[in-house]
């Protein structure tokens, strides 16, 4: 037993343990999602977060201790955001062709995401901290946290709400679009990427490559637009 404790003390002090746990949990979650034929409810991000969170609570590990290892995965969000320029450049002909519908959907969708979250949060009587943290929730996590810092929200809470929005969108987008009888996969993908950023984009790529492409474009454009719109719209929306 003392040996096990010694080993635990050693391993939990290195970043390697929680880095490995994060990657393994995601690999397992992704395999479960594949085995369930990519059913939207078996969202790999949700499954991986649940597995890791349970492990942290059971082992009484604090989040900062976990993050010391997991930060290496988290850090890649920045370079991944830069990397979005590549699919955007590659699909420039399609983007140009669908330029007008995309631009209109981008502006209305982005504004709808920000306004609906702030107004609903006020309607439900949520506190100021939650309202501010909800405003940038449709942009991708790295961008949302940056916006959060600028508007005085807690970046850690912003990150959690952003990830929750991503998972929610990835789960509801397919049944919702089927219910609305939308068969334009460019529009479906664009909506998934705009509202649920990288997690929605990953889901759209599971459905079909065209939807994924437009989701990636929407994710990049909405990251940009949310960063501009939130500081402009927030003073008008807050009571």
């Amino acid at each position, binding site marked *: 037993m003392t040996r096990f404790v010694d080993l635990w003390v050693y391993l939990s002090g290195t970043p390697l343990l929680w880095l490995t746990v994060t990657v393994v*949990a*995601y690999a397992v979650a992704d395999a479960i999602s594949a085995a369930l034929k990519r059913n939207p409810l078996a969202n*790999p*991000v949700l499954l*991986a*977060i649940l597995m890791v969170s349970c492990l*942290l609570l059971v082992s009484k590990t604090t989040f900062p201790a*976990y993050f010391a290892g*997991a930060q290496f*995965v*988290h850090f890649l*969000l*920045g370079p*991944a*955001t*830069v*990397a*979005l*320029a*590549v*699919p*955007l*450049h590659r699909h420039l002909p399609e983007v140009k062709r*669908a330029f007008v*519908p995309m631009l209109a*959907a981008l502006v209305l*969708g982005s504004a709808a*995401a920000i306004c*609906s979250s702030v107004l609903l949060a006020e309607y*439900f009587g*949520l*506190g100021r901290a939650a309202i501010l943290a*909800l405003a940038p*929730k449709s942009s991708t*996590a790295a*961008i949302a946290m*940056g916006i959060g810092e600028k508007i005085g929200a807690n970046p*850690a809470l912003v990150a*959690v*709400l952003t*990830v*929750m*929005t*991503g*998972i929610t969108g990835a789960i*509801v987008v397919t049944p919702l*679009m089927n219910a*609305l009888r*939308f068969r*334009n*996969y460019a529009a479906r993908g*664009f*909506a*998934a990427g705009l509202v649920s950023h990288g997690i929605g984009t990953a889901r759209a790529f599971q459905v079909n490559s*065209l939807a994924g492409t437009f989701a990636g474009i*929407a994710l990049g454009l909405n*990251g*940009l637009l949310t*960063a*501009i719109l939130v500081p402009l719209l927030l003073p008008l929306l807050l009571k």
Partner: protein
Amino acid sequence: MLHAVVVLLVCQLAGETLAHAFSLPLPGPVIGMVLLLAALLLRLPLPKETAETSDGLLKHLSMLFVPAGVGVVQQLDLLGEEGGRLLAVIVLSTVIALTVTAVTFATIAKYMGVGEEERKEAAE
């Protein structure tokens, strides 16, 4: 891969630097993305593997959200108090924004006659 990593990090660093130097409202990585897009459009001699490495990074994009999502363990107090209402706001706002975006896109695309080829392609 090394040279592609250099390109991505340099773009991000340049983006962060510009954002801070000029107090821009945009986060550094977004400016980095615009810089890389500009470099691609200007046909600057970027390393060949830039596209490959970027695709590889984006293929596992959803994994990169796991550490931030695990941050939920730190917010359990707030979620205990406001969790139900927060979830309600997120679900309703997500459904509203998804519907507004898809309706706008599909309606204008249909009116303009674009997007038909995408639909055929997707059906195949």
